[in-house]
C-alpha cells in the first residue's frame, strides 16, 4: 500500500513543477496582454485629462463666456482676444463646403458601384478610391496651393491665394473615399429580394435605386456622412496650407479663414512661450475639437449599430 503510493508520487513530483511554472507564465502573459488593452483606455483618459487640465488653466485667465461667444480671435495682438467663433466659423465653412462637394459625388459613385457597375469596372474604381484614401493630408495641401487655388483665382479674380474654397475642394476629395466605401457597403447589404420585388411591380432602375435601395440603406449612408464630417472637422495639414491663417468671421469661401486645427498648427510652429494664454488656448481649442469629433463619431456608431440589427 505504502509502496504503491510512493511509486505513484515519485514521477509526479518532477511533473508538477513545470506545470506550476507554466501556470504562472500563463497568468503573467494574461496580465501583460491585459495591460496592452488597458493602454487604449489610458490613452483616452490622458487625452481628456491633459485637455481638461490645461484648458481649465486657460479659463482661469479668459472667461469661458468670452471664449464661447466672442467674435474676435486675436491671440497674438495686444490686447488679446479669445473668442472662438471665428475659428468655429472657419471650420464650419470648410466642413460645409467639403460636404457640398463630397456628398453628391460620393453618393453618385457609391450608387454606381453597387447598382450599375460591371465587376471589372468596380474592381478598377475601388483601388483608385483606396489610393485616394491613402494619400497623406499634406499632399492634398500641396495640391490645393499649386493646382486648385490658381484655378479658383482664375474663376473668381477676387479670391486670394489662400481661400476657403480650395480647402473645401481638397477636403471634399479627401473624405470622398470614406463616404463611398461605407455607403457602397450598406447599399450592397440591402437584400436582393427588395430590388426584385420593386422590379416585379414595374419600377424602372431609377425607381428601384432611389425609391427602394437608398431609403433601405439610409441610416448607414447617414453614418458615412457623419464620419466624413467628423474627419473634415479634424483635418489639419491640407486646411492649414489651403485656407491660410487669418481668423475671419465670414461665410465667404473666397477669403482666407483659420480653422480650429490651423490655429493649433500656427501656435505649434511659432516660438510661443509655454504657459502663456495663447499657448494654453491651444488646449482649449483642442478640447472643442475633441468634443465635436467625439459626438459625431458616437452618433455615427449608434446609427450603424441600429441599422445592423435590422438586417441580421
Amino acid at each position, binding site marked *: 500500500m505504502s509502496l504503491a503510493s510512493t511509486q505513484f508520487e515519485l514521477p509526479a513530483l518532477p511533473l508538477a513543477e513545470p506545470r506550476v511554472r507554466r501556470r504562472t507564465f500563463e497568468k503573467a502573459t494574461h496580465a501583460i496582454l491585459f*495591460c496592452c488593452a488597458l493602454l487604449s483606455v489610458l490613452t483616452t483618459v490622458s487625452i481628456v485629462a491633459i485637455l481638461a487640465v490645461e484648458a481649465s488653466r486657460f479659463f482661469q485667465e479668459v472667461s469661458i463666456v468670452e471664449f464661447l461667444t466672442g467674435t474676435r480671435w486675436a491671440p497674438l495682438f495686444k490686447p488679446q482676444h479669445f473668442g472662438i467663433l471665428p475659428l468655429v466659423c472657419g471650420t464650419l465653412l470648410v466642413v460645409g463646403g467639403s460636404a457640398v462637394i463630397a456628398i453628391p459625388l460620393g453618393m453618385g459613385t457609391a450608387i454606381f458601384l453597387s447598382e450599375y457597375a460591371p465587376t471589372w469596372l468596380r474592381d478598377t474604381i475601388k483601388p*483608385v*478610391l483606396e489610393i485616394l484614401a491613402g494619400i497623406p*493630408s499634406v499632399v492634398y495641401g500641396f495640391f490645393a496651393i499649386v493646382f486648385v487655388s490658381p484655378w479658383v483665382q482664375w474663376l473668381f479674380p477676387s479670391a486670394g491665394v489662400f481661400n476657403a474654397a480650395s480647402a473645401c475642394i481638397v477636403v471634399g476629395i479627401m473624405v470622398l473615399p470614406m463616404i463611398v466605401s461605407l455607403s457602397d457597403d450598406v447599399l450592397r447589404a440591402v437584400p436582393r429580394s427588395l430590388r426584385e420585388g420593386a422590379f416585379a411591380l414595374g419600377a424602372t432602375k431609377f425607381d428601384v435605386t432611389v425609391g427602394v435601395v437608398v431609403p433601405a440603406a439610409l441610416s448607414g449612408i447617414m453614418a458615412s456622412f457623419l464620419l466624413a464630417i467628423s474627419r473634415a472637422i479634424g483635418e489639419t495639414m491640407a486646411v*492649414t496650407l489651403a485656407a491660410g491663417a487669418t481668423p475671419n468671421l465670414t461665410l465667404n469661401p473666397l477669403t482666407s479663414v483659420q480653422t480650429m486645427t490651423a490655429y493649433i498648427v500656427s501656435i505649434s510652429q511659432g516660438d510661443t512661450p509655454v504657459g502663456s494664454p495663447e499657448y494654453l488656448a491651444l488646449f482649449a481649442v483642442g478640447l472643442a475639437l475633441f468634443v465635436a469629433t467625439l459626438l459625431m463619431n458616437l452618433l455615427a456608431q449608434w446609427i450603424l449599430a441600429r441599422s445592423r440589427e435590422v438586417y441580421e
Partner: protein
Amino acid sequence: MMAAASRSRRRRMKWVSTLFAAACLASALVCVLMLVVLVWNVVSTGASWLNWSFLTSFPSRNPQQAGILSALAGSLWLIVLTAVVALPVGVGAAVYLEEYARPSRWRSFIQTNIANLAGVPSIVYGILGLGLFVEAMEMGASVLAGALTLSLVVLPVVILTTQEALRAVPGSIRHASYALGATRLQTISRQVLPAALPGIMTGVILALSRAIGEAAPLVAVGAVAYGPFLPAGLNDQFSALPIQIFNWSARPQAEFHQLAAAAILVLLVVLTCMNAVAVFVRYRFGCHSRW
C-alpha cells in the same frame, strides 16, 4: 388618349433613369480623374528636381542645393520606433480582446473606446504628445516624443486590423489544439498567431504607411523643418518627410513648390512600396491557408 399619356410618361421615366445612371457614372469618373490630375500635377512639377543629390543633401535656403536627407533620416527613425512600440502593444491588446476577454461590459467598453480613438483627429494626438511626452515627461521635441505620439495615432488601427485577422482564424483550430492538451498560451502562440500572421502583417504595414505620411501630430510635438543635422539618439531633434513637404509648400516661391513636389514623389514611392508589400503578403501567404 390615356395610352398616349402613359406612353409619354414611360418615355420620360426612361429618360430620368438613363440620366441618373449617367450622373452616377460621371461622379465615379470624377473620382478617377481627381487621382489622375493629382498624380500628374505632382509628377510634372517635381520630377525634374528628383536626383541623387536631392536625396543626399540637407535642406537649404537655396533651392538648388536643398535636399531631404534629414527628413528621410527622421522619417526612418520615427517609423522604426513607432513599429517597435505600436506593434507589440497593438497585437497584445488585440490578442487580449479576442482570445482572453470574455464578452462582458468591460470588453465592449474597451472596444467602443478603441473605435472612438480611431476617430480622434491626429492633431489631438499631437496635443496629447505635446502635453504628456514633451512637457510632463520632459522629453522635449525629441524623436522619442514624436515616435510615441505616432504610436498612439496608429495603435487603434493596429488593434482593429489584428482583431479582424484573429477573428478570421476558425475556432476548430483552437479546439483541436486544446484537445491535444495545449495550454491557451501555446494555442495562441503556435496556432492562432501564425495562422493570422498575413492579416496582421497587412494591417501593420497599412498602419505604418499611415504613420509615415502623418504630419499634424509631429508639428504639434515640435518637429523642425530645417537644420542640417541627423538625429543620432532618442533625445535629438528631428525632421520628417511630411514636415519638410509642409514647410516647402507653405513658402511663396515656385522653386520651393517644385522641391515639395519632388519630396512628395519620394513619399508616394515609399507608400506605394509599403502597400505593394502588404498586397504581396496578403496574396502570397494568405492563399495557402484556405479553411
